[in-house]
């Protein structure tokens, strides 16, 4: 196959992988958002930088699976540090997240900067993990990312009722005999997986947006969990693809920020135009109610009458 023909294939595969990652991140992120723990992924994501650089330092290899494996270990270490702080100190949760986030990122920067200063060959490529850079992805890497994303979605789909139950009413779940701490850790680990898988596309600093913004946007459109998951996945997919495409137009622009802005645009649309929960819909309803009060045609709500 001539190089010219190979190029579009690679681009297509990378695009498909980015779409899969965006979809899976949106789906997995729903539970973090529903549990009101949207920013736990932030602590994991900032720790990944140190993991990526350490993996390179320890193995001398720069292939994606090695680097992401290091990122995953670091993400889990960051989450473990969070648990340890909660368990052994008086420090509150929000401060603990900020501590893990800031210190682990500082470690990552120190390692990265040290490598650059020594002129270590190949260290320059690691900078891309800060803000995302999909151009360097090979087809094999892309397929691997897509595979992990698909697996994550499958896990969520399989354990949908368990995840929903634990997110909604952990006390009841525990009383029924479900292993709530285990399920909690599993959900958080899934977020860590998605954060790591999203690193090439969005970078360590902004990848949390992929697991936070699409679920929040999807919530505006629906009152049921399964449609919310599907919609969050779709919005994540569109944002990821759109962001990568937009950043391709401006060569210097990293992919992370453009993906986030695409997701934010989708959120803005959801915020204003969603039926019932959207801003315009609420304004319309309030005007409607005011009009009916003025006209004297508003009747009490029937089914609240019997409590």
């Amino acid at each position, binding site marked *: 196959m001539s190089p010219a023909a190979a190029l579009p294939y690679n681009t297509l595969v990378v695009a498909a992988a980015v779409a899969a990652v965006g979809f899976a991140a949106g789906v997995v992120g729903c539970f973090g958002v*529903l549990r009101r723990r949207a920013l736990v992924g932030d602590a994991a994501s900032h720790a990944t930088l140190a993991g990526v650089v350490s993996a390179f330092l320890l193995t001398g290899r720069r292939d994606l699976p090695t680097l992401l494996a290091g990122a995953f270990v670091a993400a889990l270490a960051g989450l473990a540090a969070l648990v340890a702080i909660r368990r052994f100190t008086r420090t509150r949760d929000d401060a603990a997240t900020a501590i893990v986030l800031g210190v682990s990122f500082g470690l990552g920067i120190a390692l990265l900067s040290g490598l650059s200063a020594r002129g270590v060959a190949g260290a320059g490529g690691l900078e891309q993990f800060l803000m995302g850079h999909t151009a360097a992805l090979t087809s094999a890497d892309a397929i691997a990312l897509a595979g992990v994303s698909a697996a994550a979605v499958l896990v969520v789909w399989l354990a949908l009722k368990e995840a929903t139950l634990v997110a909604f009413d952990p006390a009841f779940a525990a009383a029924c005999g479900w292993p709530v701490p285990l399920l909690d850790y599993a959900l958080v680990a899934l977020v860590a997986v998605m954060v790591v898988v999203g690193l090439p596309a969005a970078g360590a600093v902004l990848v949390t947006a992929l697991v936070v913004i699409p679920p929040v946007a999807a919530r505006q459109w629906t009152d*049921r969990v399964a449609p919310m998951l599907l919609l969050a996945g779709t919005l994540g997919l569109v944002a990821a693809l759109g962001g990568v495409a937009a950043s391709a137009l401006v060569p210097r622009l990293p992919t992370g920020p453009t993906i986030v802005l695409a997701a934010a645009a989708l959120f803005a649309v959801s915020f204003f135009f969603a039926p019932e929960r959207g801003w315009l819909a609420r304004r319309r309803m309030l005007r409607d109610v005011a009009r009916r009060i003025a006209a004297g045609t508003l009747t009490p709500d029937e089914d609240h009458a019997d409590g």
Partner: protein
Amino acid sequence: MSAVGAPALELHDVTVAYGRRPVLWNVDLTVTAPGLFGIIGPNGAGKSTLLKAALGLVPLAGGSVRLFGRPLAAVRERIGYVPQRETVDWDFPVSVMDVVLMGTYARLGWFRRPGVAERETARAALERVGLADLAGRQIGRLSGGQQQRVFLARALAQAADLYFLDEPMAGVDVRSQERIFGVLDDLRRQGRLVIVVHHDLRTAADWFDGVALVDMRLVAAGPTATVLTPENLRRTYAGHLDVLDELGRAVQRGGRTS
């Protein structure tokens, strides 16, 4: 299968500590089925804690719990639970039917989805509490009484022999309270034991066969008429037990009281 003649609930010298500070001291309580049993006492005095200790939701600092003569883990499918309403996120995107179906999850086990049989159970439970026509509504769009009845329906869907309810009448209008009590009464007549943490003394005297008076420790327990005496009520409600407070702090410190 329980040990022959074993009481439905047995708490033996149960002590519960938050952090390292004991909040519930040395509770010894036996309750048999069938019946409607109330746990009464001042606010913040350990009533909910007692319930959670029975359900294994808080770790025990001492003592043991037996349900139908066996440890909790062995009889979970015979237990139903209605937690306090304020612990729930009412903005969560689930409908009334979704919530009631959750009562059937434990029987389904891992990864299986609720099917026709489970939906039938849920529908029947909703009928019993009078919410069948609101099955599709998101739970945030219900009144207080309706929300409480959804959780009761969920517990009914668990098809249990022993039910624990934590303040089911709190913030609920009188008509809903009567309706809820009707359902609990039905359960009692079907041979079940229903244990209720309750805040209202007046209705307690009317509704419950037996009560336990709790104020950081068990003051008295037994048939309602014998236990709800002025003397026992005084010991429970009037006069705070400073001794237990100071001791609790001393134990937490690892030292002695003054």
